[in-house]
């Protein structure tokens, strides 16, 4: 039953299913773009498109880290904590001057590493469910920031960084989207083409089997949390240098955009399923959506309603694919 003809069928079906996984978010994107064309045609002006690009950069960098963690079957709620922590570290150590920029960058990376290692240790060594582990470290990061800054953080970010947040290449392309692009390519290559990526997928799909095949699953999962926090640091740098001020509002808000983007794009929460392309589309969809909502000038309520509806709808459209496979009792084996 495994003769030549099936070869073509299997490859086409797998290609088809790969395509279908981005089809749903594509349809969502098309819908939003269409709605925008009717309601707010100005969305299609170059200036607004540039804002969309910028949003893509800002959301995207964190979403890349989130994708890595989601692929291990985890989730990282502490990314927004890492983002906030970075800007506080920057402001406190430099006090707005460029002199200590390098020290500040090193310290930010150390902070990110610490967050990632705490998450990784809780998840890998203690077996704490990622959702709770990373939420706990999010609360802890808040606590650290508040204790450290004696309340609300404030301060200036060195001007030497401002190109990162507000710069533009050839006066057109915002730097954040470039940073995102480069990082996306790197993450994409790692996932698709590297041994690390293969180990990551294997771990996400079946941790037991991967471990018994000699994959250091703990190391793989831990690295993903570290990578996620470090990408959070990069996102934090971009974010902080965008306005040049520490944003006290960021410290308290648990931002779920990175999760929403990855998941709308089709990264499964169960681990091991989804590609970088999924995240990419999710990020674009979310960026367009957020910009459109601002353009629409709808109130806070309407914005939330639309975001919620889009999230549910996007997943509804890819619902079939995400359903627990009807014939395998294998849920337990994969965690």
């Amino acid at each position, binding site marked *: 039953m495994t003769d030549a003809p099936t070869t073509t069928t299997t490859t086409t079906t797998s290609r088809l299913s790969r395509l279908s996984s981005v089809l749903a978010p594509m349809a969502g994107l098309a819908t939003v773009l269409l709605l925008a064309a009717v309601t707010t045609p100005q969305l299609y002006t170059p200036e607004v498109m540039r804002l969309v690009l910028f949003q893509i950069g800002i959301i995207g960098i964190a979403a890349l880290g989130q994708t890595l963690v989601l692929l291990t079957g985890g*989730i990282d709620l502490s990314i927004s904590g890492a983002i906030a922590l970075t800007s506080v570290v920057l402001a406190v150590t430099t006090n707005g001057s460029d002199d200590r920029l390098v020290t500040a960058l090193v310290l930010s990376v150390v902070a990110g590493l610490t967050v990632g290692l*705490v998450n990784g240790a*809780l998840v890998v060594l*203690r*077996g*704490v*469910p990622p*959702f*709770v*582990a990373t*939420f*706990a*470290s999010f*609360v*802890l*990061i*808040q*606590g*650290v920031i*508040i*204790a450290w800054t*004696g*309340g609300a953080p404030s301060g200036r970010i060195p001007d030497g960084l401002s190109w990162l947040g507000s710069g533009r290449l050839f006066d057109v392309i915002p730097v954040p989207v470039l940073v995102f692009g480069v990082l996306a390519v790197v993450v994409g290559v790692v996932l698709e083409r590297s041994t690390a990526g293969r180990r990551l997928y294997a771990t996400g799909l079946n941790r037991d089997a991967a471990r018994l095949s000699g994959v250091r699953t703990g190391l793989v999962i831990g690295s993903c949390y570290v990578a996620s926090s470090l990408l959070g640091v990069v996102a934090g740098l971009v974010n902080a240098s965008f306005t040049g001020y520490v944003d006290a509002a960021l410290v308290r808000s*648990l931002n*779920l955009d990175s*999760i*929403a983007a990855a*998941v709308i794009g089709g990264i*499964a*929460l*169960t681990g091991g399923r989804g590609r970088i392309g999924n995240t990419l589309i999710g990020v674009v969809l979310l960026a367009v959506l957020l910009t459109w909502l601002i353009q629409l000038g709808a*109130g*806070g*309520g*309407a*914005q*939330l*309603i*639309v*975001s*919620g*509806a*889009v*999230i*549910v709808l996007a*997943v*509804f459209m890819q*619902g*079939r694919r*995400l*359903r*627990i496979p*009807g*014939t*395998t*009792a294998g*849920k*337990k084996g994969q*965690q």
Partner: protein
Amino acid sequence: MSAATVARPGPSLSSLVRGGGAVWVVVAVMVVWLSAVRGGGFWSTGNLAALLSGAVVLGLVALGQHIVVLTGGIDLSVGSMVTLTSLLTAVLINGYPIRTVPVVVAIVLIGALMGGINGSLVSIAGLPPFIVTLGMLYLVSGVALTVSPTPDGRVTSALTGFATSTFGPVPAPFLVLLASVVVIWALLTRTAWGRHVFAVGGDQHAARAVGIGTTSVLMRAYVVSGTLAGLAGVLLAARTAIGSPTAGTGLELSAITAVVIGGTSLLGGRGSLLGTMGGVALLSLITNSITLLQFPSTLTDLIRGLIIIAAVAVFVVKRKE
């Protein structure tokens, strides 16, 4: 032989965690400590009443969360459901005593309805609970802001009277929580549906294979969660008297934390109500003790974070090998 006996302590802690007892040990230690440090202040009727009434809303929401988590799901929308229902309670009653009873009934039904929406998306459409309820979180918060962006409405004195009345040190709303715990406990342990909740959470395919209507089991779990959120909304409105479009923000995360500290597995199929209530008790005690002990305000979040992280690291239920 000796090797086997040496290895014992592990299992006993883990069984304590599984049974939900472990967190109560910590609660007991904290109570003893608080009594030693601030005996009079802690055991004063007023403080106990504050502690207990502070636990009511979180307790009800955690109860619903507990069931949903047992089915292997998660309900991120409970906080926003509490917000909307408490706001609606105040706005719809708006000080008219005649409306009290019908509105309260309607609100609990609205809670059930929202739970039903979650439930049907999860069970019938087969979507992942995390995203469904995340979407609902945004959606319902949005609806609340649309109903009224500012604090609005007013409940009647009958409701506020209920919220503030006490039996000894026990506030009346706490009795509602107790009653709900008893009802849920009975449902979980004494009915077929309760068994099925565990089965669906343990292995959905296996549950289907033995003929369990997984759709209706899941549906009911989310409906119960929504109903409890509705009830919590009513009690919150009764306590605050006036509706606010942000009242329940962040409750879902506290509720999930309580459930997990209580030794319930987020993978589903395993957990004890006792533990979840212990988690609620612990979180309430932390809040209570921060004010009682007058910790410097800038350290409170750090302390809270450290306790939560320590608790989840110690009380997490590990997978069996």
